[in-house]
């Protein structure tokens, strides 16, 4: 659990970030990334035998944890979600890269206990596909930063259209339209590019 100081800082940075301060993002990202990763593993390693988990739920739980009873400010929350979406992308891509390097027998050294704890388990197929989607997304990023962000929010963060719109400061209608085009663009890139 983060202590009160951290919660306070996160709230302050979120405010800053909402106002467009890019430095605040750099402060927030590592904290959110770490907490998210910790949650992803703690959910998997929890004691109950059966459980469902999905990225949206993890992101939401992380938000509630990091901000405790924090502000119910919808704007702040959607900004937080956006950062979490980026972090989630990073986590999944890292997990896929590790899977690939293990499969190819690249780095054979056994994982330490810490690393195993952090390990997000993905199947071979999922991790390969994820890397391909990520490459395509990187290409899209070069063409339009905004389009890529929309993909991050909708696909990696599991955010709703309204949340995405609020986080990126664009209208919900634009998000809806852009998401349709962006995912089609990615799909076309994956199959024809």
């Amino acid at each position, binding site marked *: 659990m983060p202590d009160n100081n951290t919660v306070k800082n996160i709230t302050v940075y979120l405010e800053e970030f909402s106002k467009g301060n890019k430095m605040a993002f750099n402060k927030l990202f590592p904290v959110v990334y770490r907490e998210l990763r910790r949650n992803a593993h703690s959910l998997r390693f929890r004691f109950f035998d*059966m459980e469902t988990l999905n990225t949206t739920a993890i992101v939401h739980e992380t938000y509630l944890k990091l901000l405790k009873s924090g502000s119910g400010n919808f704007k702040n929350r959607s900004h937080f979600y956006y950062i979490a979406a980026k972090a989630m992308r990073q986590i999944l891509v890292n997990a896929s890269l590790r899977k690939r390097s293990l499969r190819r027998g690249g780095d054979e050294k056994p994982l330490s206990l810490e690393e195993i704890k952090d390990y997000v388990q993905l199947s071979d197929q*999922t991790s390969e596909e994820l890397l391909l989607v990520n490459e395509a997304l990187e290409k899209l990023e070069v063409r339009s930063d905004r389009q890529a962000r929309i993909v991050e929010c909708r696909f990696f963060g599991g955010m709703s259209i309204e949340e995405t719109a609020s986080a990126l400061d664009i209208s919900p209608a634009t998000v809806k339209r852009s998401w349709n085009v962006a995912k089609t663009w990615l*799909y076309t890139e994956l199959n024809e590019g």
Partner: protein
Amino acid sequence: MNIADEYWDRLSVLFEVCQDAPPEIWDSLIAKHGEKNADIIFEAKRLLINKTKAGIYFSSFRKRIEADLEGNEQKSGLQKGDIIDKFRIIRPINHGGTSSVYLAERADGQFSQIVAIKLMNHSCRAGNAEKILRKEQQILAGLNHPNIAHLYDAGITEKGGIYIVMEYIEGLPLDRYCEHNNLRLYYRLKLLSQLCDAIQYVHKNFIVHRDIKPDNIIVNNQGHIKLVDFGISAIIEHEMHNFDGKSSFAGTISYSSPEQLEGVPPSTASDIFQMGKVMLKILTGSTVNSEKTIKNDISCLYDTKSFNKVLRSKFSKNIPYMISRDLCAVIGKSLATDPSSRYNSAYSMKSDIMNILNCFPLDARKQTLLYIMHKFYRRHKTHFLIGVSVFVLLTGVILPAVWYLQANNRLDNLNDPIIHYTGQDKFKISDYADKGYAEALELNELVMASDRSIFGESHPYIAENHIKIGLIHMALENWEDSLRHLHNALDICLINFGEKHISLCRIYSLLGDVYFKIDNNSKSIEYYNKAINTATEVLGKNHPETENYINNMEKIKLELSEN
């Protein structure tokens, strides 16, 4: 708006115009829309062909990722997003035979709050079940104790399912916590004494828990036990079964008392019995076959010798026979077939557990003079010989010293004179706050002076004194004084125990705290590292204490990087 955004906006508008129409009429729609840019038109057409496939691909891919993360999927009574009363379900936590537990959050936007919701699998058919539920809920909601998970609400869903809204505790059930962390006997007994506290509080409020078992005792991330799932579910089960015309028994068979099995209404004595069962499970790791053991008492199960054997193989070869015998006696007394022979309160059970920890004689055992003497000897083993000889000469001096020892609740029975400070610092400081720091300081300096005269300059007790005084100085923010005392304590411990001893971790960590306070970050990190390394070597990497130090370090590093 930059060029790229404008391009994509125009592209997506055009895309939207055509997306639901068949390809044959795209051209006419585009003409009607008025887009002239050939690149955009070309790109829109190229993408439109894949629109449906892309939609299906991404939604199925997301599901596959989530399925990977989920590991195994399962069906449940409630789905994510379902609303129960004021709460929205986030995800299932656990599915049991009679109920399912879900993680949920407050949905009315009043404030954010995470709770656990337990939903009974049976639906409620009888009208008075609700009345009973309401009554019980009122009583239970009034309970307020640090070792009891708070019950917020209970009710019946539209479909007739009974639900209970409780405080959400993140942690492990007692038995799994102990095994997972490979906890030493000492810590297990400490946890059991917390359990006694909780049950004592419950009984004081005229409530019988009815279903005490490790699954209902969660150890949270701070290492405190929390009693969850109050008798309320047992009560409900009971009512259900009655309506079904089945047995009137409520609870978990392997933890139930003989009289419960015979259908006698549960009492505080049956709770004591269940605590005895839990204790047996926590110490030996086995849930002993219920039918047989319930009819006999523990003496038929384990004679002291084999109990001692189990403990030694489980914990340490050095567990004294006396301790096994005492533990056996405590469990035996709580598992007595006749309810009136059991402990008459959870408090008296706790005090016997504390007696074992402190090497005092037990209530559960016959108080022969030899037994009492032996206990006294174990309590003060290291000083017994000195004590006896000094006693002859200086009765007047040694007695107050012994009183001091007892007053300070010193435990030297489990080999580590200082270990009992672990995790207690905060309490100690707040204890002092009530009395006033100055007074506490004076008292402790007096104790140290007297200890010095009896035990010499470099006895572990003196280290203990230094730590106490150091802590008080920390509370007073006299950093220099606290550093001096902590370093003294460190030196003494190094002399007495060498470099690999648990007592060092705590001191290192405290030193790290103080150096951090005075902004000497490099020193602070150096000492935190020492605490982690020593704890890793002595306790192992996964011991909660080691993890505690590691977490602490992480927090500090985070704070440093933020400033």
